[in-house]
Every structure is written in structure tokens, then in C-alpha cells.
């Protein structure tokens, strides 16, 4: 119906001079759309000194990479990004544009939507092509994950959406894949920003940001105090995970807001979500419905979180946490001893 050969695009995310892993997840999404549409899959790479990295996107599934490499793009400045994306979409007229629902994607995509007058769907967890119309079906949780809404875009293309980080695994890297690298030199007028980047201070907390974490160790009011949260960090360190928290624990000042899981915090999609001393308010549960496996520890046998958990442990959160840490450490040291032999 919509029988064009217009491309599917993904917006690569650049940190410094490297390509952030979510860019590869986006290509896994993109392949699932480009293949049934029989159109090329292209990635948009905008940054400073990033051109040498373009092959990584080909290896991750892209057929083409449009490269805009200019010192002007050293920092992510939203006005400049919107300008370049408008230029690229006007010039090449893609059918679909997908970005990651990171702070960048969630800033620049709504701006682009307003700039070019195209629809935008936030935070999708499923994408597919309608076999009849050939249009993009964007599925996203609504009303706190209680409803899944299928959304279509009408009017002018591209059909645009952001997808949740970690909701799809990247394809296996294939260095033998061949693709086309297209260097784009934007007009000088598009370079430069009204904004000024003044510096970045990394967070000192353990692990990845919660939205990117594969394992999340969360605590709630049942952790009783800020000091006990250190135990969660210890467990997170042991398992290679990240500490999360309920709204209550954040409101009590035990953990920073960046760790808050739920409707007024972040929605997360880890492989394992462990909840210690979290009773499971609706808002919290809404934020963890995308978790693959949920383990909950709570003293109250009626805690609502037990209704959504794959493993529910009734008991004292601190006692179980201590015993679990001990058990993992013991196993670890035994293994090390074995290896040493």
C-alpha cells in the first residue's frame, strides 16, 4: 500500500567518541521492521570524531550509516541536534525513525516531532509492521503498564517513536557484514548552539543506570534506614547489578532520585529484579512489569508485591539479605580456593 522504498532509521547514541550499546539494540529493532518492509536499515551517527566507529553499526545490523562528524557536535546540545535531524529527514525522507528512550532520545525526539510536525510515540516495548497497511504499529504500556496500547502514526513520515532501553537484545556482532557509509556535510548554518555545555560530573554509585541494568537490587521502607542500603549495594556489587529504590526510600532521603523505580521514577526492564522491604504500591509495580524475573522479600505475607513476584520470600528483609550476601561470598571464596589449587 505504502509501497515506497523509504528507509528505516535508528538514531545512534554517542557518548564522547564511542557508540553507546543502546544504539545496537535499536538496530535489532530496526532489522525486524526493515526486513518485512524490504527496505534498507540505516543508522544516524552524529558526533565529533565518531566516523571511525561507523563500522560498529554495520556489524550490529545497519545497511547504511549516515555520518555527520563535526567538532561542533562534541556535546549533545538539543537545538543543534534537532536542526541536524530536521535536515537529514528532509533530505533523505525516511519512513521510520527510532530512538532510545534515554534522557537524550526523550529530549530531542519530542522537539523534532514539533519541528517537523510528525507524530511521536514514547517508550515503546514492541514494534511491528502492519501486514495490510505496511505501517508501523507502536506498542507501549499505558496507565502504569495495566494497558498495552497499539499506536499508529498518520500524516507525514517519518513514523517516530522512542523505545525502552534493554527491551531488546542487540544482534550478534558480525564483522563480515558489508554496508554503506555516507558522510553528510551539513550547511554551516546548522552548526552551533545557543546552549553551552559546562561540564559533567559522573555519579559515584554502584553499577549502571537502573534503566540499563540487567540486575536490580531494590529496597524500600522495610530497609529501615540509609545505612542498611549499603547492604543492597554490597549485593549489587556481588551480582554485577545496580541499586534501585521505592519512592518511599527516596522520599526518606536514603537514596538519590536517580534510583527510584515506579510511575514517578523510572520504568525498568532488568532480567532480575529483587525487592527487599518493598510492599509494592501500584505505582511501583507499574515500573517493574517489564522485569523478566521478580524476587520479593517482605515480612508481610499479604504484601501486594507477592502477587507479581516469581519468587516470594516472607521474612525479615535484612536477615535474608545478610544471609544471601554471606552465602554468595562463601561460594565465591570456595571457588577461588578451587581455582588456586
Amino acid at each position: 500500500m505504502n509501497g515506497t522504498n523509504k528507509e528505516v532509521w535508528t538514531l545512534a547514541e554517542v557518548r564522547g567518541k564511542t557508540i553507546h550499546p543502546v544504539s545496537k539494540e535499536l538496530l535489532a529493532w530496526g532489522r525486524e521492521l526493515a526486513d518485512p518492509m524490504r527496505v534498507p536499515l540505516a543508522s544516524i551517527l552524529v558526533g565529533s570524531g565518531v566516523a571511525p566507529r561507523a563500522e560498529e553499526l554495520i556489524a550490529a545490523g545497519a545497511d547504511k550509516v549516515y555520518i555527520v562528524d563535526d567538532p561542533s557536535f562534541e556535546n549533545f546540545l538539543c537545538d543543534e541536534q534537532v536542526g541536524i535531524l530536521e535536515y537529514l529527514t528532509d533530505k533523505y525522507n525516511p519512513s521510520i525513525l527510532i530512538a532510545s528512550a534515554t534522557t537524550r532520545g526523550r529530549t530531542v525526539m519530542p522537539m523534532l516531532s514539533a519541528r517537523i510536525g510528525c507524530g511521536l510515540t514514547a517508550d515503546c516495548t514492541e514494534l511491528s509492521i502492519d501486514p495490510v497497511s505496511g505501517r508501523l504499529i507502536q506498542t507501549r504500556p499505558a496507565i502504569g503498564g495495566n494497558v498495552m496500547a497499539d499506536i499508529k502514526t498518520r500524516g507525514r513520515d517519518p513514523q517516530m517513536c522512542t523505545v525502552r532501553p534493554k527491551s531488546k537484545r542487540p544482534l550478534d556482532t558480525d564483522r563480515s557484514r558489508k554496508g554503506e557509509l555516507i558522510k553528510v556535510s551539513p550547511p554551516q548554518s546548522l552548526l552551533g548552539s545557543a546552549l553551552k555545555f559546562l561540564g559533567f560530573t559522573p555519579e559515584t554509585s554502584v553499577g549502571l543506570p537502573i534503566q540499563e541494568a540487567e540486575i536490580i537490587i531494590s529496597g524500600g521502607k522495610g530497609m529501615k534506614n540509609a545505612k542498611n542500603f549499603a547492604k543492597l549495594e554490597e549485593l549489587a556489587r556481588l551480582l554485577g547489578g545496580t541499586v534501585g529504590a521505592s519512592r518511599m526510600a527516596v522520599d526518606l532521603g536514603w537514596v538519590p532520585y536517580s534510583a527510584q523505580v515506579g510511575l514517578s521514577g523510572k520504568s525498568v526492564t532488568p532480567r532480575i529484579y529483587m525487592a527487599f522491604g518493598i510492599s509494592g504500591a501500584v505505582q511501583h509495580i507499574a515500573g517493574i512489569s517489564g522485569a523478566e524475573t521478580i524476587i520479593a522479600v517482605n515480612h508481610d505475607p499479604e504484601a501486594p508485591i507477592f502477587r507479581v513476584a516469581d519468587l516470594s520470600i516472607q521474612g525479615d528483609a535484612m536477615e535474608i539479605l545478610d544471609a544471601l550476601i554471606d552465602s554468595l561470598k562463601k561460594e565465591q571464596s570456595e571457588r577461588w580456593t578451587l581455582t588456586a589449587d
Partner: protein
Amino acid sequence: MRIAVLVKQVPATDSVKIDEKTGTMVREGVEAELNPLDLHAVEAALRIRECRSEGATEITAITMGPPQAKKAAAYAVSMGCDSGVLLSDKRFGGSDTLATSRTLAKALKKLGPFDIILAGERATDGETGQVGPAVAEFLRIPALTYVSSIDELDEGHITVTRSVEGGHEKMKAPIPAMVIPVKEMNIPRLCTLGGKLRAKKTEIPVLNADDLALDEDLTGLKGSATLVVNVTYPQMTREGRKILSSAGTKDAVKAIVDLLEEKNCLEAAR
């Protein structure tokens, strides 16, 4: 200095329960409230006014919704905003984020100019977080998103700290600018009795599509570029294994370790 705060009325999630049988959220009879994340935007505006040593600061809360959404603007007034405006019209109904942003931007142009526009990170009902940045773009002003603190503000510029993945970044922008706070920026104040009385006496004007000179094709369902074509209700509850406290800590820990093992999540620990 003139500040506008965009606020939205949402169903009060604190009073929402899950239906045991269907596993869906019960929304009937649920009270409405001001979107919790918008409270931080209102608080930020009030603090700007309090911090400014020279010149007057005037704060206007703007909301869009059905007639009863007037309450959201009134609540913002009771917290300390000077005035409130409701954008309400049947023709606005069914607006997606693009149509909503366009409508709000029209209102901001009509009621403005504003030096600072504040908006909540996202609403707890729609959860898109798209309206703030899109409004900024319709006005062609910078969007400072995920702001955890406002560090400096003078007649020409604003300097903020943004909370992004893995840390905080500092950014300076010319004003007018859109500032979208995250929760960590402040603790919103409660409204005082005096504030409530003042809100009662403050008339909230209502603007419709004609007042905004907004073409019918650009707002509401007609002006929307996205359409919900299907809705499904996923099962939220899971049939999980339960271990009671009577089983003892040892068994509980073993169950956790076994499950982590089964899911291949013990590599790091080894």
C-alpha cells in the same frame, strides 16, 4: 520576570487499587490530583520568585483539560502562583502530545512573553514526557530537560544542572527557556490555609480554540498525528513460588540462589 508553569490534572494514583481478578487498575471513582511531578515545577517557580532580590516575579499556572481541570490550576495558585488559566474546549479533546504541545504553545504565545517556562518531567497517567520539550520547540526556545538544580539565573541566561544517565551535567542557556525539573530538584511545599483562601478568590479564566485563534485541524483528535488503534490488558499478576517465614532463612536463601543460577545471573559473583 514572568514565569509560566504547565500543570496537568491526573487520576490520583495513590488511591488506585488493582482489581484482584483482572489484574487491572481500578480507576472508577478515583479522585483527581495535580500531577505529582508538576509540583516540582510549581515549587521551582516559587523558589525563583523568592530568590530574586530585584524586580517583581509573576507566576502563571497553565493547564489544559476538561472543565474540572480548573482545580489543577487552582491548586497551583493555592501553592503560591499568582494566577491560573485553563485551556478547555471540546475541540481539544483527544489531543496527542503533538496537538497538546501545539495548543499549549499557542496559549503561551498569547499569554506571554514569558522568561521561564516550567513543566513537569511527565504525567503519571500518559507517561510520555514529550509535551515539555515539544512546547519548547514550538516556541523555538531551548529545552532544559531533567534539571536537578537551577544554579544561576539573570536577565539573560540560566545555568542548570541536569540529571542524566551516569551523572550530572551543567548547561547554560539563554532565556527564554523551558526548564523541566526532576523530582530531586526540590521538595514541593504544601498549600497553606491562606493559599487555599486566595485560590478560592482567584478567578481561573478559561480559553477555548477561538480565543487561541487555533485552527480546528491543528488541535484535538484532528490535529493529532498518533492514534491508538488497539488496546490489550496484559496480566500483571504472576503465578510465583512462595516461601513462608516458617521455612527458615536457609531455605529462602537457597531458593534465591537457585533461581539466580537458573537465570544465569551468578556469573559476576564468581
